[in-house]
């Protein structure tokens, strides 16, 4: 490994530490936000999931190096996102597709 590569990885290490601190902070914020009465429980759910998405971005983007990956990986993940979104879409659609006389709550 060249001295330049060594320097490059050393810079990344500093970035990993910042991400780590952000993840710790994000966890505490998630717990704290769950105790705040926003008036509607749906808002609590949205806030918790929003913070979780932010944390997931940090882990995937920096620890898994997705912010600087090859096109091949992005292409593969595009398929995953498409099918995952389809799965969630079908899940939501299922709420409007109960058999007749079904009692919902």
């Amino acid at each position: 490994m060249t001295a330049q590569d060594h320097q490059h990885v050393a810079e990344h290490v500093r970035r990993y530490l910042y991400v780590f601190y952000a993840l710790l902070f994000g966890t505490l914020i998630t717990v704290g936000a769950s105790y705040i009465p926003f008036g509607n429980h749906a808002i609590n759910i949205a806030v918790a999931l929003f913070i979780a998405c932010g944390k997931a971005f940090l882990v995937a983007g920096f620890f898994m190096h997705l912010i600087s990956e090859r096109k091949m990986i992005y292409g593969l993940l595009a398929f995953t996102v498409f099918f995952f979104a389809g799965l969630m879409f079908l899940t939501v659609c299922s709420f409007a597709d109960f058999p007749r006389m079904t009692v919902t709550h």
Partner: protein
Amino acid sequence: MDIPYTVQPREDTGLYNAKVGIWLFLASEVMLFGALFSSYILLRVGSLEGYWPRGWLNVPVGTVNTLVLITSSITTVMAWASCKMNQFGRFKVFHACTLLLALTFVCIKSYEYHDKFTHYEIILKDGRIADGHIVANDPKAESVVISGRYVQDRRDLYDLEVPKAHHHHEEISIPRSQIEKMERYGPWHNTYLAIYFTLTGLHALHVIGGAIVIGFLWGPGSKLWETDPERFTNRVEISGLFWHFVDLVWIFLFPVLYLI
């Protein structure tokens, strides 16, 4: 025979083969956990009003476990960076930390499971429900002893975030002759616990599987460093990608199961 592209990237993909392999595997894992999250949504939205549990899990314990897993993620990435910087000693230290943190996570999860498996709901013949942790359950004894409370309506057991839920916890002795049904808080108890144990159990299996691979690379597998350090570093990167994915899943599991 040499396996091609374990170190050098392929011309067409620009990546070494194991990296493409792990990302394909992780894509399938996203769909696996996605299906279970989908099941969770369906079960939660379809549950009867007032019958979806709240406050059944210990938030401080879950928070500590989240911090443990996040810390293991940084030690994993630092182990890989140490290999990249030719610092094998540091790699060993960081991955030893990862293994200890993985063990800590599994121990904490086991404690939580134990808490659930010693928690009973006992329906009495007079219609009352006794709920609490078992203190004595000798099959030869004429009574069962729990530390808990009586409720008239099962719905009182579901929302533990209301202050009254934590009142009147005491040691209760119940004669076996009065017991209609007695069931512990296992995955069969209700749909919440079924999906809780399925999601966290599958996740825990991933933690154990990842720890075994990391343990191999830390122990006997580390001999490769002496003969082919670049290939070894790539192996560390691949195991790290899996470990970060496990962390990623927990980042969503924690708020979904513990907080909302």
